[in-house]
């Protein structure tokens, strides 16, 4: 007697939304086992990793703070993913956005203008779009695979940040640390809730989710991209441009990632350093998938991912485990999600008698 998977007559809508929950449950079980293997109490580990980051007002605010860049990146990426545009370089686009927005702040150290912050966001969006335009152009003009080119540009962006903070943009009074000056107060995002660090970028991120929802579900352009992505031939037959899908998918992804970059340097960091993002651009891909490429899903998935980041910090502090444990959880989550997604199109059947 064997378990066998067989195709469902129709994809299951229920499983589409149950699958992420199943994946989270599997990840939690796997996490408890991992804690056990590492010689920690699974219950204690669970508390420290998953409950403590939600324990008090400050922690919940931190959760939203960390979810902000994830939301932004993920909503942009999901527009592309829907159109089968595999932009995996959001991390690089985030960094270039941070450089563009942060560069503006450094260039106007004495500006009192209320438009400085909006201008920084604009610059960040443009920076991210510029970085995303490179793989878009190489793909549409030269047919070069955007997965590899967008990823290579992440390394280039990291080196660019490193060069700027070690070289031309280094704080002259900074005791030779590889970082820029602190931004002036007009270039720092206002805090939303007194006593916490959650800032106005959250509003930008929520706005992006709303705009993203409208674009994906209520606009003809969004519909075209979805058709091109899911059924390339149908899209071509209907006269939807495949090039436009690539360009839009990449540029929207880059724009949002660039905004996320500004939200970090003008938010919790307040300057440009070598450590702007702990892999938000990569984690956002998982957020987009877990959130089913839908803004509402992305909202919750980004909070979950923020929880994994904070859980990692907690585990480091209280359990003495390396911070990278949160990356292990991220990878597990995506694996479990991909595995659970099988049940959208297939179901399990007991296969008796036959070999």
């Amino acid at each position, binding site marked *: 007697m064997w378990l066998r998977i067989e195709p469902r007559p129709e994809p299951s809508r229920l499983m589409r939304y149950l699958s992420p929950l199943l994946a989270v449950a599997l990840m939690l079980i796997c996490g408890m086992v991992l804690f056990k293997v590492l010689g920690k109490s699974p219950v204690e580990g669970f508390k420290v990793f998953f409950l403590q980051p939600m324990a008090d007002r400050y922690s919940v605010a931190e959760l939203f703070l960390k979810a902000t860049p994830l939301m932004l990146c993920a909503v942009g990426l999901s527009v592309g993913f829907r159109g089968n545009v*595999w932009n995996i370089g959001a991390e690089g686009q985030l960094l270039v956005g941070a450089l563009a927005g942060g560069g503006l702040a450094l260039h106007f150290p004495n500006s009192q203008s209320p438009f400085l912050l909006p201008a920084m966001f604009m610059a960040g969006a443009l920076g991210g779009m510029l970085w995303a335009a490179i793989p878009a152009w190489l793909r549409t003009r030269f047919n*070069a695979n955007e997965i590899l080119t967008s990823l*290579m540009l992440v390394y280039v962006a990291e080196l660019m940040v490193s060069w700027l903070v070690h070289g031309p943009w280094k704080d002259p009074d900074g005791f030779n640390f590889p970082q820029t000056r602190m931004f002036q107060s007009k270039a720092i995002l206002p805090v939303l809730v007194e006593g916490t660090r959650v800032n106005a970028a959250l509003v930008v991120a929520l706005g992006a989710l709303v705009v993203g929802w409208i674009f994906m579900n209520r606009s003809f352009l969004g519909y075209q991209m979805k058709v091109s992505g899911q059924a390339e031939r149908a899209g071509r037959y209907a006269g939807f441009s495949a090039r436009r899908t690539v360009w839009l998918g990449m540029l929207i992804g880059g724009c949002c990632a660039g905004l996320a970059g500004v939200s970090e340097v003008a938010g919790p960091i307040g300057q440009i350093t070598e450590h702007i993002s702990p892999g938000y651009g990569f984690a956002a891909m998982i957020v987009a998938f877990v959130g089913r490429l839908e803004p509402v899903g992305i909202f919750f998935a980004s909070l979950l991912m923020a929880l994994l980041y904070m859980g990692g910090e907690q585990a480091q502090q209280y359990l003495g485990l390396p911070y990278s444990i949160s990356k292990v959880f991220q990878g597990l989550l995506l694996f479990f999600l991909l595995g659970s997604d*099988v049940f959208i199109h297939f179901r399990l059947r007991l296969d008796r008698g036959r070999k």
Partner: protein
Amino acid sequence: MAPGLVSAVLFATVVAGTPLILTALGELVTEKSGVLNLGAEGIMSVGAVAAFAVTIHTGSPLLGVLAGMVAGMAMSVLFGFVALTLQANQVASGLALSIFGVGLSAFVGKPYESQTLESVPPLKIPLLSKIPVLGHALFEQQALVYVSWIMLLAVAWFLYRTRWGLVLRAVGETPVAAHAIGYNVLRIRYLAAMFGGAMAGIGGAFLSVFYTPLWVEGMVAGRGWISLALVVFATWRPLRVMLGAYLFGGAMITQMFVQGSGLRLDIPAQFLSALPYLATVVVLVLISRNRSTIRLNSPASLGQPFMPDA
């Protein structure tokens, strides 16, 4: 340039190119069977840390390399389970493997970060290593360098001169036909993916046990991704992998080249470090711009799932 410098630059190029050859060859065989595994970066990372840890504990680099190989195979089985058995999207599964592998290696490798291995003496080939300039560069290398050459020939021979190589390519071109004449497509794809995992694991092991020899988080630094690009650059032909690997190997050691050349160039280190990544982009563009080259050479069913019963 002095002959000594030429020899040193060539030597370093070969060393830098070796992990790329190993990983790209494995990926090439995987892709020839129709499976696109984007997880090479993760596999190399896990292979590197497994090899390093085992070498530290046993003192035997050979056991270390074996551990890297086994770890790489385990990773590819994980990928196979999701992408082949459960038929998840191969691109997403590969990304998952990369994210998971890089994270796992960082996690497991933390206690080993401050430790170093003794460097392993090279394997000198008698007579050949006496050739001026080239002898040192080519024949005073680590054993794995020679292994990479042997594997290169072996893979070329296997794919194009053996019956099972033909079957593997058939599975990559038209799995339906291969299935119809009685070959187990999934099993063959699993085996091809495992070969790819083993090779990427060895590639990672070469980095941590022979090249550096130490473990630092993120030390694979995109070499897995570059290897993927290398397969495209080689238009899925084994012997061209070598050319590409040494090209990228050369790009990786430009820093040494510039310093040694005595030219007083004031180039920031980051610019030189960015070269291999930029070179990858340029090379991809040059190869891909001719659409028919890609279409004619890439396995026809690359990345497509196959369902035996459907």
